[in-house]
């Protein structure tokens, strides 16, 4: 267990900046909240970039001992490859959503503080702080607090409109998240009882395959799955993500779910011994496969645009779980590919889904409803949003050169390399179904309205540009040079530091 590494202070600021910003925004309120949020989130992108660059340059994780106290008694912050990559993803998406939200949540000078803008900007900062804590934490209980913060912020963003349907679906989410965090905490208690430490690095060195450890892992896994809405625990996700305002949906689907996933990987790849993890991984991947097929099929049949996109999230989450049996199969090359594929899927889905929800919101706003069957004319009213939706769709389907394609290709070759061809079939079948529902939306939007249709009102181009930029990022991820992908392998158990994909 190493101490604070050079550059470790970056981690402190990554966490302290949004947390302090949130406190300041809360105290000052009104117009100041918007300014603080934009400044802090902008700086957050720079900090996340700096963290990623330092990790990449050093070829080893960054670490910081909080208070100068080493674990087991102290708490450690750590940025390994996956944390750095997801942090960068999160900071970019957060900034994009903030820019998107400026149109709807601006507070002009001299206007009294209103509820929705104040809550939006403050929660945005809170979400940023919670994500930083969840990605950088190396202590299981500290991560629990981060998860709870994440729940509070996500839930409040999702009921920003104050509709009864939102309260109902967020209450469902809250209950499921609370069960999830209770189960997670239960596992934490068992692990502390068994090892006397909660530091992931120390646990990784000592974990045994005895009953308390395995039960702890099972409980923590189930708890995190409930928070990730893996099929069949997805009851809360479609109404919650579909009912939320577009900016909130983008964050919920794009980022919040991914933070729980990183935690799940911490438990499975770091803490749990390989043998039991390998034995249970097919179950998770099987559920992931079911999520892909069922989620995509249901999305294909949805009549509401936002529900369609939300079910697409249910499906795309499934892909993340396919990496587990491949990473744990014991083949170093396949593990490397699957790991990269999984992380890339998480990142490219974050960008693509955020773009999709933002553009779905714009499309629904332009045509005045969100019935998929009657989107005719949207292509003329908000062409940029429709293009963004299409590009994001390319990434979800897995069409080259998008990030989603590279992710699925890596998972595919890893599946074939380890002889687990059935996952390959799922990946490909899911792509076909995804293509189906993306096509439904695009075909509807691009239908030329009859000449008698009223001319669409011109929309401000700013929000659509944000959505388009996010979609372009999700596509461009597939064009990154392979060297950049080495980042996500850094700090993975069993991976050589700095090795390529």
């Amino acid at each position, binding site marked *: 267990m190493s101490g604070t590494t050079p550059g470790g*202070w970056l981690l*402190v600021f990554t966490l*302290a900046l949004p*947390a*302090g910003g*949130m*406190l*300041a925004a*809360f*105290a000052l*309120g009104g117009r100041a909240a918007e300014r603080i949020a934009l400044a802090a989130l902008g700086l957050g992108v720079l900090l996340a970039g700096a963290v990623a660059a330092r990790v990449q340059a050093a070829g080893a994780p960054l670490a*910081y*001992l*909080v*208070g*100068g*106290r080493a674990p*087991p*008694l*102290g*708490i450690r*912050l750590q940025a390994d490859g996956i944390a750095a990559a997801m942090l960068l993803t999160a900071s970019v998406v957060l900034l994009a959503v903030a820019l998107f939200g400026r149109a709807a949540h601006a507070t002009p000078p001299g206007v*009294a*503080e*209103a*509820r*929705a803008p*104040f*809550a939006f900007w*403050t*929660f945005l900062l*809170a979400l940023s*702080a919670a994500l930083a*804590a969840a990605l950088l934490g190396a*202590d299981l*209980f*500290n991560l629990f*607090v981060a998860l*709870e*913060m994440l729940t*509070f*912020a996500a839930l*409040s963003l999702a*009921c*920003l409109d*104050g509709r009864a349907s939102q*309260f109902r679906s967020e209450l469902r989410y809250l209950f499921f998240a609370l069960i999830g965090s209770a189960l997670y905490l*239960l596992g934490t208690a*068992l692990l*502390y*009882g*068994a*090892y*006397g*430490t909660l530091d992931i690095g120390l646990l990784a060195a000592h974990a045994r395959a*005895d*009953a*308390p450890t395995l*039960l*702890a892992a099972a409980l923590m896994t189930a708890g995190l799955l409930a928070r990730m809405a893996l099929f069949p625990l997805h009851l809360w996700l479609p109404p919650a993500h579909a009912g939320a305002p577009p900016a909130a949906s983008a964050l919920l689907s794009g980022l919040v779910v991914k933070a729980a996933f990183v935690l799940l990987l911490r438990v499975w790849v770091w803490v749990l011994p390989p043998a039991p993890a390998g034995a249970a991984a097919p179950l998770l991947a099987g559920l992931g496969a079911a999520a892909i097929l069922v989620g995509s099929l249901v999305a294909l049949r949805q009549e509401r645009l936002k529900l369609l996109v939300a079910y697409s999230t249910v499906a795309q989450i499934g892909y993340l779980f396919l990496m587990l049996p491949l990473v744990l199969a014991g083949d170093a090359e396949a593990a490397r590919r699957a790991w990269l594929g999984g992380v890339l899927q998480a990142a490219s889905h974050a960008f693509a889904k955020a773009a999709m929800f933002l553009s779905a919101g714009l499309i629904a706003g332009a045509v005045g409803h969100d019935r998929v069957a009657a989107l005719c004319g949207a292509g003329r009213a908000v062409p940029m949003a429709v293009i963004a939706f299409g590009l994001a769709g390319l990434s979800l389907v897995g069409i080259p050169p998008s990030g989603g394609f590279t992710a699925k290709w890596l998972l595919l070759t890893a599946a074939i390399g380890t002889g687990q061809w059935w996952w390959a079939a799922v990946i490909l079948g899911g792509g076909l179904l995804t293509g189906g529902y993306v096509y439904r939306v695009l075909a509807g939007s691009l239908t030329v309205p009859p000449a008698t249709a009223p001319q669409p009102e011109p929309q401000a181009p700013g929000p659509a540009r944000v959505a388009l930029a996010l979609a372009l990022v999700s596509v461009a991820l597939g064009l990154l040079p392979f060297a950049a992908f080495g980042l996500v392998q850094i700090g993975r158990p069993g991976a050589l530091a700095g090795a390529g994909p």
Partner: protein
Amino acid sequence: MTASWLLDGLVAALVLGAAAWTLAAPTAVAAVVGFLGFGLLLTLAWLRLGAAEVAMAEAAIGVAATGVILLLAVVRLRGGAETVSAAMPGRGMVAAAGLLAGAVGLALALAVLALPDPAPGLAAEALARRGEAGLGNPVAAVLTGYRGLDRLLESVALVLAVLAVWSMAPDRRWGGIPGPRFPRQEDGPLALLARLLPPVGIVVGTYIAWVGSEAPGGTVQGGAILAAMWGLAWVAGIVQPPAIASRPVRLALVAGPAAFLLAGLAGMALAEGFLAWPPAFARPLILLVEAAMTLSVAAALALLVAGPPERAA
């Protein structure tokens, strides 16, 4: 030995009985009352486990604050009985749930029994090194010295929760006064309590927060007692919650976490790092931060109990 076994067994059985009653009680009010009994018995269990700080926190937060919230809720959540009974799962579902939950509980009990002996843990280390931060109470030393990040996040989460509750208000109520209005009680037991208890409670709460660094106590417990005193006065109609737009309220809410964060950042320049206390003036700095934290915890708990704004300021 036998007596202590008997006592522990009795407490455990009572805790379980109260919990079962909470689930099975015929009316919602009875269930909440059952839950309060459960909380009090749990406090006893904590004392038996030698965790005085936790017992105090459980009593102040788990029983008092949660109890007020639940009682207020049960009064306001009237009706809807048909929808509830329509949504009740079928007999088979309930049986399956019982079976599965029981199986999980059984596995858990077995796992607890299978925990390694001697127990690994940080008891000795925490005890030995409690003096490093200048705090005699090991729990306070852990909370302030070693797991400061938890505490910082927790205090931020509390602010966040307050805002989350506020943000559920209808748009036109933004900036207004939270919670229902209680008629002023001129006589009766509540009025008496509300007049007699708060002065005592404020002293006790402050003392508990103050003494926390050396003896059982702490900011959370002290802050919770302060909040409970305010809540009593509120329910008795003696005080009104402040408008949420008020600057002092917001400053009180963020004072604790902000002070903690700033002191932590100062530690990067003056001490070993973030959230480390500079040895030269650790003691006064800690006291300052603890005072701010007590204020913020008290304000946050009280405002969480009060709920979203419901009236114009």
